[in-house]
């Protein structure tokens, strides 16, 4: 059980490089800030996701080869991006928690895990649904598909490991180490379509080069991706708020028990 003082005056005893991060280790400050941001994140995420999906479903053109099955891309591609980006965020929080013992980073990492697993499952399921009419198979042991499946298992492993210990701090530490080790899978996912001869097509959108995608298809894809990213952020924020409150509840209950057991 976590001590009630685990958030108290964290900056005073910390090394200088992490001091800025500890401004948000105060649970009251985090709850105030996240409480103000959360409604905007959730509303803008829901609106943009709905707009991107509706645009992709009803107004974007069909592909000359794939027909209307290309519309599955507006769900699949944002989910795939968020599966990897979510894991990167999980690893970053884990590194901050391990190096600077930032208590909110522990909680955030624990809450990113289930949301990331959900988006990875969405990526795998929507890809499988697209693969059946296009490739004639629900699943192939292609390098891209297999590495994303490994990512899903890494998420599940992190979720299980964080909850495997009676003492939460030990679970957070074990999960953080797994998260950092698992980062090696991210470049494998990214470059799997270049390193191996895969059935999955190579990247059509890159940060550095011009996109190899018809612009009327690119806009709804980007809007859906931004919308899903905001939804992801809203989910993690809401779950972390709940986790901060639950930690406070445990601390208060422990204090009540300690007071009741104290001799009069």
């Amino acid at each position: 059980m976590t001590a009630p003082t685990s958030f108290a005056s964290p900056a005073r005893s910390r090394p200088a490089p992490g001091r800025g991060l500890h401004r948000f280790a105060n649970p009251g400050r985090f709850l105030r800030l996240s409480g103000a941001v959360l409604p905007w994140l959730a509303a803008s995420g829901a609106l943009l996701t709905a707009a991107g999906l509706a645009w992709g479903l009803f107004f974007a053109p069909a592909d000359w080869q794939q027909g209307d099955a290309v519309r599955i891309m507006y769900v699949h591609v944002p989910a795939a991006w968020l599966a990897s980006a979510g894991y990167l965020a999980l690893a970053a929080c884990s590194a901050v928690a391990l190096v600077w013992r930032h208590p909110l980073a522990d909680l955030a990492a624990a809450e990113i895990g289930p949301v990331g697993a959900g988006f990875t499952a969405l990526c795998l399921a929507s890809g499988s649904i697209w693969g059946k009419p296009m490739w004639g198979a629900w699943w192939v042991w292609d390098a891209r598909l297999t590495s994303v499946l490994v990512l899903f298992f890494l998420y599940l492993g992190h979720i299980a490991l964080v909850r495997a210990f009676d003492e939460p701090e030990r679970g957070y530490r074990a999960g953080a180490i797994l998260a950092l080790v698992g980062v090696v899978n991210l470049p494998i996912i990214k470059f799997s379509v270049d390193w191996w001869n895969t059935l999955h097509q190579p990247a059509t959108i890159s940060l550095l080069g011009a996109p190899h995608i018809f612009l009327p298809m690119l806009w709804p894809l980007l809007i859906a991706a931004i919308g899903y990213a905001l939804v992801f952020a809203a989910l993690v924020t809401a779950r972390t708020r709940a986790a901060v409150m639950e930690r406070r509840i445990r601390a208060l209950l422990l204090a009540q028990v300690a007071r009741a057991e104290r001799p009069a």
Partner: protein
Amino acid sequence: MTHLPYIAAAYALGVLIPAGYAIAAAMRLGAAKRRLASLEPRGRREARR
């Protein structure tokens, strides 16, 4: 529209999975706010935020 069942299934998952997470998070947050408000008076103020 070609491949309609596949498209419908993918979009249904694309809406239902995030919506399920959102409902679960809202319920968990509400329960935590109520519990915290019952345990400490300051929690009542925070729970209203």
